[in-house]
């Protein structure tokens, strides 16, 4: 005999104003199987929860319905109360008479009637609920961090310092990311590499961090606590275990003709290279797309490399055995991890897309990131601001903000967040290096909301003499050999034309182009700009919709270094929380398939979006195969119910939402309808 207790919440005025709670309480008391029907102002409060506990014990309830807000708000609260009172938490359900009723209707009578129907539906369901136990899955206490920029580095260190192993995978030959390319960072003007490289070295030396560079994540399978990852290690053609980083090979490689990615094309590198002096690991790789040995073989249609084409590096390498190994092949390495943090960072927009600004046409029109390389002490000009065209010091520089950002016509509506700050910084660096130089900044707004940020931008104007002009630039062209910038200052209402020695474009921050492929592999959503989606924009900024996969840094949205670091530590904390248990508890709302009735059509296997259905062989006592049936892996299953709906033989069912429960709920509506018709 069912003994259901129903608790109806007023939620202050939220429910009480539209639904007649007294009438509802009375009607519910009349429903079959209900032994207690009571109301309370705020059931989620401490006294409210105590009321539930007392009532369960007093009346020996077999089930509880709380008619209140959305289960997304307080299901855990009420289930917790039931647990504490000794009632299986899965015998407690909520009827959402707030979000689904009082908040969306204005007619009191109709809303009250609807609330009554909703409670009856839930009561009928709860009568058929069964005691369920959370499923426990073991947790592999190793984490994967994808991306070795500042966010990836921070996350890796935080997790490793908790005593857990971290696999850090970085695509380029060194960790450090974009932060390593910066000269000084706002608002303190700390030298970027000076504050970054100690962290990089910490990563390299940390006993708990396994670092892969020149590698990518090729495949990910599995589920939270139990991911199977395939790491694609690109052939470096240099054995990193043997290489001592002496640098002799770097001296002999020729020609130095490849645009350096690290210097954003402002300098050239060789095919055998280390991206920058402070690279970690400080060991070279050979880029087989530009190495003479490989390219000449490819041109001649040969598979075999010819020593006569080159091989200088091999000749000069002092180690025994030789660290240079042209026979090295790409490798695929399996790693098992329990959690994944995506920290793939950003890239900068292709400035030539804004054709009217002449990037790519005029050498002295450069991007903000390129300016960082010029200003950087370890950069192509050793920190001196020089024009790329003739090496002269520019007497003035025009900085243009919002190049691509806040520009729906060019495809990007959002603001890139950091450009106002780094442009102010650029004007200051320019002033500090070229005392008589004049900086002009064309801006639309100044966004300086972080700690000490506003003061920083004011310094550029008030102390360092930067002239800020409010307006966009229409075009940049060359009159003879002089760059002309045609802009406007809306504050004075005057057109402005400046003969510029150099122009710096603050280009938009974009997500990496192929990250959507990685996201699909992980089950993470992304927006139209390929920024990865957090689970909740306000309250769950580091988690994703995929359990066990977390986000850190600019891959989620444009952000500055402090925010990237905070987010990375936040993601690391989530991982540490996950790893603090040996077993991870999962909701038992999972599918099960009756192997006796399963006809092995495997529609469910095709339909399951999570790959949770497997083929299971049923064998007799002698080991002979009787039949193969479908089997739902409760560790992977997310309880979506798609298999239940496609199953032809009615063999699939969902715990907590069984066919019996669902049909009873639906029929509960009809009973009332019939009664009404009769009346």
């Amino acid at each position, binding site marked *: 005999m069912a003994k259901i207790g129903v608790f109806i919440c007023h939620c202050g005025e939220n429910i009480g104003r539209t639904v007649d709670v007294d009438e509802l309480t009375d009607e519910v008391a009349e429903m079959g199987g209900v032994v207690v029907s009571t109301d309370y102002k705020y059931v989620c409060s401490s006294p409210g929860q105590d009321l539930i506990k007392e009532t369960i014990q007093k009346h020996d309830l077999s089930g509880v319905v709380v008619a209140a807000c959305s289960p997304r708000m307080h299901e855990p609260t009420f289930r917790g109360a039931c647990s504490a009172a000794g009632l299986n938490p899965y015998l407690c359900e909520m009827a959402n008479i707030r979000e689904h009723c009082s908040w969306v209707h204005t007619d009191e009578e109709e809303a009250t009637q609807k609330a009554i129907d909703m409670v009856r539906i839930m009561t009928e369901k709860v009568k058929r609920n069964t005691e369920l136990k959370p499923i426990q899955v073991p947790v592999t206490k190793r984490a994967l961090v994808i991306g070795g920029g500042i966010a990836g580095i921070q996350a890796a260190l935080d997790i490793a310092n908790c005593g857990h192993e971290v696999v850090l995978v970085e695509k380029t030959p060194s960790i450090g990311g974009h932060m390593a390319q910066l000269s000084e960072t706002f608002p303190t003007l700390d030298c970027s590499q000076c504050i970054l490289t100690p962290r990089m070295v910490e990563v390299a030396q940390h006993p708990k961090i396994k670092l892969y560079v020149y590698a990518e994540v090729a495949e990910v399978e599995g589920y939270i606590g139990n991911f199977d990852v395939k790491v694609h290690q690109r052939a470096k053609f240099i054995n990193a275990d043997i290489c001592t980083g002496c640098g002799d090979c770097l001296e002999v490689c020729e020609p130095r003709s490849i645009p350096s990615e690290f210097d954003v094309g402002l300098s050239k590198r060789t095919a055998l290279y280390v991206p920058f002096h402070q690279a970690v690991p400080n060991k070279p790789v050979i880029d087989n797309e530009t190495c003479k040995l490989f390219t000449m073989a490819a041109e001649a249609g040969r598979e075999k490399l010819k020593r006569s084409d080159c091989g200088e590096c091999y000749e000069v390498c002092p180690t025994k055995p030789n660290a240079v190994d042209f026979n090295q092949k790409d490798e695929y390495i399996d790693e098992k991890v329990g959690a994944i943090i995506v920290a793939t960072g950003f890239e900068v927009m292709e400035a030539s897309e804004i*054709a009217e600004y002449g990037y790519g046409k005029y050498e002295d029109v450069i991007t903000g990131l390129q300016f960082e390389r010029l200003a950087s002490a370890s950069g192509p000009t050793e920190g001196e601001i020089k024009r790329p065209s003739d090496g002269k010091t520019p007497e003035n520089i025009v900085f243009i903000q919002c190049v691509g950002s806040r520009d729906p016509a060019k495809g990007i509506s959002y603001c890139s967040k950091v450009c106002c700050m780094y442009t102010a910084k650029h004007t200051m660096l320019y002033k500090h290096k070229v005392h008589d130089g004049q900086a002009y900044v064309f801006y639309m707004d100044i966004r300086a909301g972080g700690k000490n940020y506003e003061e920083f931008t004011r310094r550029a104007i008030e102390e360092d003499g930067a002239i800020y002009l409010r307006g966009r630039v229409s075009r940049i062209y060359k009159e003879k050999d002089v760059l002309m910038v045609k802009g406007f200052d809306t504050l004075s209402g005057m057109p402005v034309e400046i003969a510029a020695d150099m122009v710096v474009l603050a280009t938009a921050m974009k997500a990496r182009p192929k990250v959507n492929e990685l996201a699909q592999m992980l089950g993470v959503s992304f927006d139209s700009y390929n920024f990865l989606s957090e689970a909740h924009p306000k309250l769950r900024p580091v988690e994703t919709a995929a359990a066990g996969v977390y986000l850190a840094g600019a891959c989620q949205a444009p952000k500055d270094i402090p925010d990237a670091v905070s987010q990375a530590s936040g993601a690391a904390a989530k991982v540490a929380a996950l790893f603090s248990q040996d077993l991870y508890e999962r909701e038992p709302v999972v599918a099960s398939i009756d192997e006796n009735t399963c006809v092995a059509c495997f529609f469910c296997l095709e339909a399951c979006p999570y790959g949770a259905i497997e083929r299971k062989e049923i064998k007799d006592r002698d080991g002979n195969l009787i039949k193969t049936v479908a089997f739902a892996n409760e560790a992977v299953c997310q309880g979506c119910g798609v298999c239940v709906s496609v199953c032809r033989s009615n063999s699939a069912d969902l715990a907590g939402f069984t066919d019996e429960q669902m049909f009873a709920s639906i029929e509960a509506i009809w009973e009332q309808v019939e009664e009404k018709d009769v009346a």
Partner: protein
Amino acid sequence: MNNDDTNMKQIGYYPGCSLSGTAIEYNKSLTGIAPLLGFDLVEVPDWNCCGASSAHALNRKLSLALPARVLAIAEHEGMDSVLVPCAACYNRMVKAQVEAAENENLKQEISAIIEMPFLAKAKPVSIIEFFSEMDSETITSLVKKPLEELKVACYYGCLLLRPPKLIKFDDCEAPQVMENLVTATGAEPVEWAFKTECCGAGFSISKKEVVLDLTEKILRNAKSEGADVIIVGCPLCHANLDLRQVDILKKNKDINIPVLYITELVGIALGLTPKEVGMTDHFIDTSSIAV
């Protein structure tokens, strides 16, 4: 449109008002080279003025209706495309055709105003589109007098390429179509910064000083990049750069640069004489070109 026995391709032709008056050279040179390029220009019968700048400045409906009448007649004559040499006329025609094609209500409204059926199917073709559809090798093979060492600044003006959402052709910030044509004739296109900067258009008569100011900048930049000649695809641009250059030269003798229509340049390259293409009637002396 069918190819007739002489293997000439027929194309509708809308000369526009200026081509029988102030821009007579444009007409002369275009009709002179068309047969050499294998085209038979079939004039749209009894065509009316497109309304140019004045219609759209004063009355939107009129600005769409006047070109629509021309296109409606062209449709009626079975013309798929209509060559419109004047950039301003072309821009107005495209606006009428595209806006009507994309908005059924507007199409009906215009049909009612012009009191004739209008399907917005006949496609206006600009002079640069006309040339770009020809194989550059074909053009080069027809060249009788390659214009070697002639440095040409290609001036597109405003209305051949803008707005890009309407005229989905070439790149309005960095166009190359005219330059490709110039290369095909054997001449040398010059890269310069004022390819698409406005010449002052219709203010030639009502506010002359504007035109003098804007055209001086254009001429100066072309000259400073080493151009021997500027070529244009619009009667008004031509008038502003050529006729009005006379006034500019009074103050700045150093500017002096002849201005040709695209078709005049091509005509010379294809073997026509200066008189045949009409360049002897310009205000700025063009004799330096056809030596």
